[in-house]
């Protein structure tokens, strides 16, 4: 969020292939992390018998936090042009 005054994503820097590759990596990475998150929460709730609303609250809250945390990373990587 801090260094995104100019919204220049990968397209301008690395070409369409680079953009596609970044998108695939991001997609697979998201799927992996989010799957682990669901499995982890499921195991925690099996172990604790916490209520159902807490499960869905944490599940979706975690997603929101995950996305908001990773946005600056993605932007940072794009702007630094690596």
């Amino acid at each position, binding site marked *: *969020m801090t260094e*995104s005054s100019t*919204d220049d994503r990968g397209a301008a820097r690395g070409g369409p292939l680079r953009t596609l590759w970044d998108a695939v990596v991001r997609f697979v990475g*998201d*799927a992996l992390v*989010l*799957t*682990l*998150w*669901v*499995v*982890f*929460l*499921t*195991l*925690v*709730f*099996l*172990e*604790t*018998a916490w209520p*159902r609303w807490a*499960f*869905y609250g944490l*599940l*979706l809250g*975690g*997603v*929101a936090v*995950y*996305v*908001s945390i990773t*946005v600056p990373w993605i932007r940072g990587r794009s702007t630094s042009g690596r």
Partner: protein
Amino acid sequence: MSGDYSARLVQRLTNLRDGLEPGMDRREFLRTVVSGGYVLGVASYLGVEDFLSADEGEVPIVTALVRSDPDDPFSLEERTRDVPAEWYAAVTKALEINEYLATVGMTGYLGSAVVPGSYSSQTASVSVGISSEGRSTREMIEEIADGISINAETIVEVEEMEDGPPSTQPRVATNVDSGVAPSGVVCETPSSMATLAPALYDPNTEQSYFVTAEHAFEGVSDPVGEPLVLPIDSAEPAQLGAVEYAYPVEDVAVVTPNGDLEPSSTIDTPSSARVRGQYTRLGLADLVARDEYLEKVGALTGHTTGRIQGIDAVTCFTDTFCRRGQIRWGGEMDLTDGDSGSVSFHEDPQGAADDVLVAGFNNARTWWPGQSYVWGIGAYKLTETHGYHF
């Protein structure tokens, strides 16, 4: 149901986008919505509702297969017990997830086990073992699990099992005049020694077998046809027979009797236990929930008891494959070389005073710091895969 949640999610995210993060662009918003839908989909695939909204009340489970006639090994009938439905839902879901983990087998996965909670807790946990080589996965899980006990175990790789020569004399069969060989005593393979298990039965052929650990036939590529010998106190050793089937994954070698001695269902304990049947997977979960102990009689360490540490465990510590349906119990001092092939058992609460039900085999033990248990295939798993029963 998930549509309902998605609608709520969209609402929540719209608020988030408008209120908290005015900088969030359409792409990130879309990513959040897609991710939210994805996690709900995965949760639904895992069937989290099964245990999150489990009914109260009780459900019947089959805890054991027990002989109605103690002298007829093929007169097995199911024994049931009513258990809390919420506990049942948690345990069956933990068993399912344990199976998923083993199937996916992510980097560094060394095994896992289900540890049912007590009936009052209505919980179950899955204990996952992760190799120190799979550092990234381990760190990731430890990071997430920081502060919550999710049993992220670290297994330190050790080159060799540090077993010295056995310090005690093995338990040797004393009296075979009746024509049957007792179990829980030492038996010899051409290359090693192990403990003779109680008779195993094949319900299809109604044949009874001598059984011991397959790995006791080390040094030969295929143990089939190798002889098994029973040393007898102050007498000549008796030939029990030759290996008919060898199962390296289950670590079980099945020996057809050659006619001199018959396998028996008695275990040579101080009180001479008689095998009356075997526990099911859920029967073992029931034992854990009630904090009951298992016992065993090994040829070297003798009679020991211990707490069950995990059921339906997957172990990938040894060999190149993983072993499923294992029981973890007791401590590493309960087993040494030569005790392999012994069975773990527990008294039959509804049988006669000496009646016991078999839980499974004891084939190996931990040798790394931080954990201490014995493991071996559960009797129910052997029945599932090959049909044999005790």
